[in-house]
């Protein structure tokens, strides 16, 4: 069965969605991701959706859910690389994803996650600083 890979990079989990999500896949991703956050006890999740060109309200909700669930497990979520058309669609659908942090690309997303963790006073021993 098709799965979206979740990669661990230092103190973060990196998910790049390379295909258009359908409902089942999105639900699987949600489940896998929350499990991974729990297992690896990472402090940040980076979701790259630069290749996603179609979203619907369900997908918007899943992204929101992932962010809220990760937060419960003490991990920050950053969604990066959203395409203009996708952003406009989400806004028109009335889903501005208020709980989710966003960044322009993976690089800036990493930077944001790092600064968020600094802000939260998390200790720097997790090894993520080596990815500068």
């Amino acid at each position, binding site marked *: 069965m098709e799965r979206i890979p979740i990669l661990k990079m230092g103190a973060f989990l990196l998910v790049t969605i390379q295909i258009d999500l359908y409902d089942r896949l999105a639900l699987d991703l949600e489940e896998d991701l929350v499990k991974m956050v729990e297992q690896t006890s990472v402090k940040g999740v980076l979701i790259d959706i630069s290749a996603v060109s179609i979203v619907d309200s369900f997908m918007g909700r899943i992204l929101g859910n992932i962010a809220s669930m990760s937060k419960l497990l003490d991990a920050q979520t950053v*969604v990066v690389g*959203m395409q*203009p058309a996708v*952003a*406009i669609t*989400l*806004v028109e659908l009335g889903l501005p994803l208020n709980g989710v942090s*966003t*960044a*322009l690309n993976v690089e800036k997303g990493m930077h944001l996650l790092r600064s968020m963790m600094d802000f939260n006073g998390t200790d720097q021993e997790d090894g993520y600083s080596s990815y500068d």
Partner: protein
Amino acid sequence: MFINIIKTLKNNKGEILELWMKNQLADSVLTEELISHQELRKQSEELVNALVNNLNENNINDSQSPDFDQVTELLGGISISRARLGFSPRETGSFILSLKEALLEILKQESSNVKELFEETLKLSRLLDNFTILTFETFIKGREELIMRQTDEITDISTPVIKVWDGILALPIIGTLDSARTQVVMENLLQEIVKTGSGIAILDISGVPTVDSLVAQNLLKAVSATRLMGADCIISGIRPEIAQTIVHLGIDLSQVITKATLASALQYAFKSLRLEVRKTASEPTGINK
């Protein structure tokens, strides 16, 4: 006595043209400013020829007949070009209506039988009225195209996205922000954000005359979409009257960074990019260099 209307018209083509030209030129509104008399004569001659040559017993009651394709094509071309040149509807209308007058004049010379004359007149009138309607339809269509094109042009030029600094985009909005324009503004802005990789966008609304709840909602949409892309959005150029309206209408802009002027928005942007603008220690030498 029976008059053959078609034959009469065919034999009197020259006279029709002369009469028509006389009628057209008698209309004092028609000046040579927009079209020269020679040009007008050429147009008229073509039309008379097309009409009279294609007219026969069968199609005189049917203006939709394919025989008249040449006529409708000519008429369409003339009215579209007139719409673009800025002719008034009156000028365009009298062009074809004065042809009717000329044709009837010829008929009158041919017959004195009132009943017959009336019937033929009726037929001819009906045909030419249809052509008049066609002329007007095309004229209005031409004008509407013109208006549409201008609207498009205004929309295009009125939403420039300016890169004010590395990582800072500014978008001055001039004019009312309706839903269609919000769409254009948003698309332009988001595309530019992707292209330049800018982290901050400043929406300057100094040029927006009024902000009602709909405009505010559209602004919030643009801000949300920018945020989803991963950039910060600042709204600047809020005039005191607009601030009053926003509060009176109960619009909540507390989630949005708002600044009074573009300058303070820029200052904020510099600060969040950890840039600073300051005076140099020494006097600048040769500023004109």
